[in-house]
């Protein structure tokens, strides 16, 4: 996704946009719509990059989504904040894994595994 339009949004609006994309992604996953889920992954990535580019790295604003009612939002927010809030993000991922609500629990578990294995080094 082009980030051109995102730079006009406030941090708060970017967080809202992130949550909306993640909810949409949850629906795509439920429908096994891999193409749509993949597109939304890159839309989330673009929002995350925009927040990272803001002064002071505003990805920390996504931490508020750890309490979102949608599990996919919590999962995507936790992954996106591993570099800026490693302890809190790991705790959020662990909580999702412990909830045993799949597929998000499996995805969270694989993320923690990749971190422990050194495969995933958040930046």
């Amino acid at each position, binding site marked *: 996704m082009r980030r051109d339009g995102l730079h006009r949004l406030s941090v708060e609006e970017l967080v809202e946009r992130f949550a909306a994309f993640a909810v949409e992604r949850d629906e795509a*996953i*439920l*429908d*096994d*719509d*891999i193409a749509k*889920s*993949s597109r939304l*992954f*890159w839309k989330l*990535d673009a929002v995350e990059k925009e927040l990272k580019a803001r002064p002071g790295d505003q990805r920390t604003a996504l931490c508020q989504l750890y309490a979102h009612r949608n599990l996919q939002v919590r999962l995507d927010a936790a*992954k*996106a904040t591993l570099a800026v809030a490693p302890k809190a993000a790991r705790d959020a991922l662990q909580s999702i*894994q412990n*909830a*045993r*609500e*799949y*597929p998000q*629990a*499996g*995805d969270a*578990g*694989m*993320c923690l*595994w*990749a*971190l422990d294995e050194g*495969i*995933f080094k*958040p930046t």
Partner: protein
Amino acid sequence: MLPVSSGAPAGRDAAACPDGGLLRLRWLAGAARFERALRRHAYALKANFNPDQPRVPAGEPGGGQWTSGGGGRATLIADEDGEGEAGQTDEGRAPLRITIYPRDFADESEPLSGWPFVDFVLRDLLPSDLLRLDPPPKVPARRPETTRQRNRVAKQVAYWAARSALRISGGPLGIVITLAEAAIWLHEMYPAIQSYQDPPKSLEDSQKAVASREKGYDVHHIVEEDAARKAGFPEHWINGPDNLVRIPRLKYWQVTGWYMTPNKEFDGLSPRSYLVEKDWVERQRVGIVALKLFGVLKP
């Protein structure tokens, strides 16, 4: 339930319209025959129908019902009238009982014609249990037109049932789902909904299970089949007993979906793409870890 089963109002219509009355009655008789055939078909499909499947002995709770008889898996009951005894799980715990049944159906003589959705009814639960559950998903009374729509409903029911069991009993044990004819189309999805409630199994048991086919399950390649073939791994590795496990269908879809979707931990690659450059041992290692973390295999 088919809309054609609204016998009383249709009879009144026929009587009030003498010219078309005979035709109307013939049409109704044909529709009723069709509906009975549909029901027979649905019951043949129920619970992975297998004449050799064991039943609970007479005189015991749930006597005469089908039972899976193994591994802590719940008994599956699909009664015509929504009644039936749940019995107990292998662990001796009373199962969570979920009835896919219209709330008002038992109290009213009118059939369900025109009802857009069928509600769940939860039985045998304490009020404190009910408070811990999310609202159940809506099951369309009419069979959705597309496979994707039908799968979506099946997944919503299966996920909700698993989530409810976790919140009430703390584990994936003791789910009994009772179908009434109101959601007759859901019978076809039943094996997948039920198999999703399985607790994690050992790798060895999942490998051995490949030898027997069962509805609601799929054979999964631990090292992905197509990717392995493209990489030139030998066929006897790809389809060898060490690489095959039988797993619940909805879990199979979840794991496959995860393999195919871009992922942050693999730098934006899908796990499938990430593994392209890896050897057999690494692919196998990741494959087994994924099955464990998606709740298919025991940790």
